[in-house]
């Protein structure tokens, strides 16, 4: 890797300002409980889905919650064009996500989408995806796209303990899947950045999403090893489509809008 290459890579983060945004009712197809507080929601569009890129997110309306006022942003976990569905990978945090966890087959869910930019997709490279917590959400769809572009894909998930190591088979479809657990009950013990694979293998690209401390550790590893690295950031969002300017991320070029100029950022642009 050299800097020239890195620069090219930077421009790969395409601003998708030209993709038409929609507000539509979806139908809940199924809710899969993954463990105590994580679940996957498959929702079916009533019209054919538009093109959706890995790293993009949706903003969902939570009905029937006394305490939820704004929509809730959620990464797009997977898109199945055959079934015309989007999958969301959700962690129950407060009343909004709890109410989403009570949706059942046939319920309707109002969604604004597709929002945000996307992860870059290199070709024929050795790629590493690092996820933690509900930050794993966008990685599955990313893995699929990376594989389709001829990349070698390794997904490394950091979780607390065995019961949180979920959906491993899904990732396996697109490459190698590795796990670290904090309590050592599964995979290697420790945090993802302590996994032995990082010493054994040399990656060309790193993509990460998860708790900020984890992403910062991954960014540090990437910077040290001169590997281009993209992170997906969260922020406080009111609209999700560039209207409110509430979701500012500080970058080397000044304040950027996380919901339209992100959520995916190259670590070189961040003031980390």
């Amino acid at each position: 890797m050299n800097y020239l290459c890195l620069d090219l890579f930077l421009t790969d983060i395409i601003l998708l300002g030209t993709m038409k945004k929609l507000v539509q009712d979806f139908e809940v197809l199924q809710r899969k409980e993954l463990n105590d507080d994580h679940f996957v929601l498959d929702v079916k569009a009533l019209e054919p889905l538009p093109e959706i890129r890995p790293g993009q997110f949706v903003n969902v309306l939570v009905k029937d919650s006394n305490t939820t006022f704004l929509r809730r942003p959620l990464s797009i976990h997977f898109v199945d064009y055959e079934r015309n569905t989007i999958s969301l990978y959700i962690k129950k945090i407060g009343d909004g996500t709890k109410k989403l966890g009570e949706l059942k087959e046939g319920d309707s869910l109002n969604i604004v989408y597709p929002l945000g930019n996307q992860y870059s997709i290199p070709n024929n490279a050795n790629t590493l995806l690092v996820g933690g917590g509900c930050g794993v959400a966008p990685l599955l769809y990313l893995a699929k796209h990376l594989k389709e572009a001829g990349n070698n894909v390794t997904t490394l998930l950091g979780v607390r303990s065995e019961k949180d190591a979920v959906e491993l088979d899904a990732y396996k479809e697109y490459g190698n899947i590795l796990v670290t657990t904090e309590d050592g009950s599964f995979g290697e013990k420790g945090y993802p950045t302590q996994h032995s694979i990082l010493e054994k293998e040399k990656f060309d690209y790193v993509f990460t999403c998860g708790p900020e401390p984890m992403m910062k550790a991954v960014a540090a590893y990437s910077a040290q090893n001169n590997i281009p690295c993209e992170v997906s950031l969260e922020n406080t969002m009111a609209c999700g489509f560039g209207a409110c300017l509430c979701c500012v991320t500080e970058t080397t070029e000044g304040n950027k809008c996380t919901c339209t100029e992100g959520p995916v950022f190259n670590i070189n642009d961040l003031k980390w």
Partner: protein
Amino acid sequence: MVNLGVKLKDLSLKNPVMTASGTFGFGEEFEDFIDLSNLGGILVKGTTRHHREGNPYPRMAETPSGMLNAVGLQNKGVENFCKDIYPRIKHYDTNILVNVSGSVIEDYVETAAMINELEHIPAIELNISCPNVKEGGMAFGTSCASAASVVKAVREVYKKHLMVKLSPNVTDITEIAKAVEAEGADSVSLINTLLGMAIDAETRKPLLSTVTGGLSGPAVKPVALRMVWQVFNAVNIPIVGLGGIMNAKDAIEFILAGATAIQIGTANFIDPQVTEKVVVGIEEYMKRHNVQDINDLIGALQIQ
């Protein structure tokens, strides 16, 4: 066919539904969702004399039936607006109003003067009420003397419709309204956000980088309605009512309280199509109640 058209003095709106500044971008952000030509008018982002980076993260916190923001007037400055943005949006078949903000009177004046030259901008909304900027901003809107002085100065350079946006963070909003009316404001819009604050009990930190911020959404609707009604009984210029409007029923309430037109802010975030729906809903309400002309509803609240 019912008549939805209203007039803010010389400014004709095809219907009373406008958007609130800072919640509707430059209109472009909503082109995927609605047809802007169905609206009475759009208020574009708060524009200042010079580029402003706004406040640091975090800028937003959800509150019961509302939200706090501390955007802090992030914008690229009026020159950028005139050069880059205006050409992009001037073709919209609706009234485009620019929300003008500042820290010192000269800034307001210079910004207003530049916008005065833009053919397709029939009006500005003078924001003397933003709680999210350190100097000036809200301070102008919280005393009669300073409100009057900024309106007076801008009035001298701005020849089209001058709307003044009032702050609700005052003891008596009618006094400020009368002061700006006396200096030649063509209309007043109210309310801007209520100054509020939110804390994360777990981290013991404020939820906004600026500690306090502006409260908007349905939570403030009762206060906004009250102020519109008070100002309606105090001034003779038209009133544009806003604060927590989520649907046509809310819009009708503001009109009954005395608003000639209304603005929709926070609701755009929750339903980006809400403005069009409110236009349709007002029309339905009028048909159901056999009201031929929306103007018959303005201030038509029945007090026994």
